[in-house]
């Protein structure tokens, strides 16, 4: 039969042998390439391994979001339950509250926190005295390198009702002390403010790098044309760093549902759950404290899918509007 087919279709043999030779050629090229560039791949390996172990391998476990997971039965043996966990989640007021809080905290961080590093970078760019510039940069970069635990400690101390610097200042102006950290209406402000203080300086490095990439003769030309420093800032610097701003914005939108988990855990308490409980803390409580791993996985998966859709949308809009995109 084989012979008959080959007899009637002489091209079959030729094309398969051609494919084999192309495959062999590609394999040979790959081996040669690895031999030549192995140092680069060696340097890349830790990142690839990290991604595989901590991001790709756990994806296998995502299936428990659709299963009635039991640690005794394991992932594969646990029975499928379809979208049951998702229905349960959306019937849970706490989860809806967590989504709302996440969006509000992230939205506030984005609206108030995103422009701050850009403004800082523009301001650093205008500082002419190198010593002052270095000092100012060090001061604003520093909080980034302090661990979240210490930052939380500083915040708790600063807002302490009797000895905290904020309340002492309020007292000095004749106001009563405020128990900031147990008042739900203050939580988001304190959290967003802390985040800006901690990360704005470090975040400005990317924009500062973009600013330093602007062709200096553009400024010289503008000086000859009579532009003021402020005009140069908004007519030259800002438009020139716009692609970087957009890329950072897309990345930030992708992370909009990823509110700093550690900081919330350290700053919130049942009294402020109303405004402080976010998706990640909800997942933590469901998954680790209540041992409802399947429910937590469903919440996590929902979070990831929404983030993915947001990145795609932001990227598409940016590509259409400004020709700048991640891919």
């Amino acid at each position, binding site marked *: 039969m084989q012979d008959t087919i080959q007899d009637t279709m002489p091209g079959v043999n030729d094309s398969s042998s051609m494919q084999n030779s192309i495959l062999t050629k590609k394999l040979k090229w790959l081996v040669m390439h690895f031999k030549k560039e192995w140092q680069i791949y060696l340097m890349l390996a830790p990142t690839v391994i990290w991604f595989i172990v901590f991001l790709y391998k756990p994806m296998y476990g995502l299936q428990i979001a659709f299963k009635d997971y039991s640690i005794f039965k394991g992932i594969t043996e646990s029975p499928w339950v379809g979208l049951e966990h998702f229905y349960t989640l959306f019937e849970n007021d706490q989860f809806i509250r967590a989504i709302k809080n996440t969006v509000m905290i992230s939205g506030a961080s984005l609206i108030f926190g995103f422009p701050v590093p850009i403004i800082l970078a523009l301001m650093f760019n205008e500082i002419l005295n190198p010593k002052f510039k270095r000092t100012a940069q060090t001061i604003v970069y520093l909080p980034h390198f302090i661990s979240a635990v210490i930052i939380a400690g500083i915040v708790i101390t600063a807002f302490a009702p009797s000895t905290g610097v904020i309340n002492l200042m309020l007292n000095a102006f004749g106001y009563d002390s405020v128990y900031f950290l147990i008042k739900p209406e203050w939580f988001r402000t304190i959290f967003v403010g802390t985040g800006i203080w901690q990360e704005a300086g470090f975040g400005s490095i990317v924009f500062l790098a973009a600013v330093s990439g602007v062709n200096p*003769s553009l400024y*010289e030309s*503008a000086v*000859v044309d009579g532009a003021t420093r402020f005009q140069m800032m908004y007519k030259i610097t800002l438009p020139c760093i716009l692609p970087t701003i957009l890329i950072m914005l897309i990345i930030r939108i992708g992370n909009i549902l990823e509110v700093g988990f550690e900081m919330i855990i350290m700053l919130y308490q049942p009294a402020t759950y109303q405004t402080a409980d976010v998706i990640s803390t909800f997942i933590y409580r469901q998954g680790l404290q209540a041992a409802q791993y399947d429910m937590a996985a469903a919440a996590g998966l929902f979070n990831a899918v929404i983030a993915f859709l947001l990145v795609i949308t932001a990227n598409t809009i940016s590509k259409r509007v400004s020709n700048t995109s991640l891919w």
Partner: protein
Amino acid sequence: MSTVKLKNLVKRYGDVTVVHGIDLEVKSKEFVVLVGPSGCGKSTTLRMLAGLEEISGGEVSISDRVINDVAPKDRDIAMVFQNYALYPHLSVAENIAFGLRIRKVPKDEIKTIVADVAKVLELTPLLDRRPADLSGGQRQRVAMGRAIVRHPKVFLFDEPLSNLDAKLRTQMRAEIKQLHKRLGVTSIYVTHDQIEAMTLADRIVVMSDGRIEQVGTPMELFNTPKNTFVATFIGSPPMNLIEATAEVTDEGCYALFDGQRCLIPTLKELTHRDEIIFGIRPEYIEIEPSEGATEINVKIDLVETLGSEALLHCKFLGKQFVIKVETHGKVNNLENLSKLYFRQNAITVFDKTTTNAMMVN
């Protein structure tokens, strides 16, 4: 009247002086080119004139007004930069209009001026494009448009053609020259390319190590260079220089080298046995004997054919020696040449110690 005067202009960076007291006067409507090798201070001088560099000493004046402490925008100058300095996020029209918008010129007026300038520079079909969508030559024209749109008293050009390929450079050179003729604005142009300097300038200022070596018309610099630096910097290929000893006799002056005796111009400052350098341009060396010409023996190593001309390379007294000859379309037997002829009036004599040219009687 837009004259530019530089009086004892100095630029220092800390202890290092890069411009050592330059004196120069540029007449109204004149096209002056500052030329010199990299690091000679020509761009720094231009930038001091533009107000982009602080002046360490001396005085700069435009139309007899000292502008040392005047802001760049108030100097009534326009500058074209080496890399065009076009705003990448603005269209051609917006780029041209930038300076006018900064000066709050009414929108209708801006529109009319931009349209006029675009017409002059043949940019009308490109007005809506971004700089990234333009060729090098078009970008250069936009940069020029930005400069001329303000009708300044003085144009400053900082190596504006150095980013273009050779063909486009030649084309743009001609366009700049025509534009200058049409607008008649005093222009100061910086370049390291002596061909650009020769073709564009009314007068050339040759600079070296932060000092002016010579100021003159292109032909003055070519025919009567003040020193060996100018002689070798201006002209392509550069002037051939030969070290020799002077012999002054009643019949005339001679240069003695390698057992040969070459008749040179009679120079009053020349004394017998003086150490001299005598120079002859590659174009002025002859391959046919003529009356009074000195004959020298050479062996041609290489013939470079340029079409209507050819460059003959040979070693003479251990140094590279170049001869430029007209080929009239034929290059036969040029490599077999063994004799060259120096005519007396084609020779320039320099003092070996000072390297300055000696004056002809």
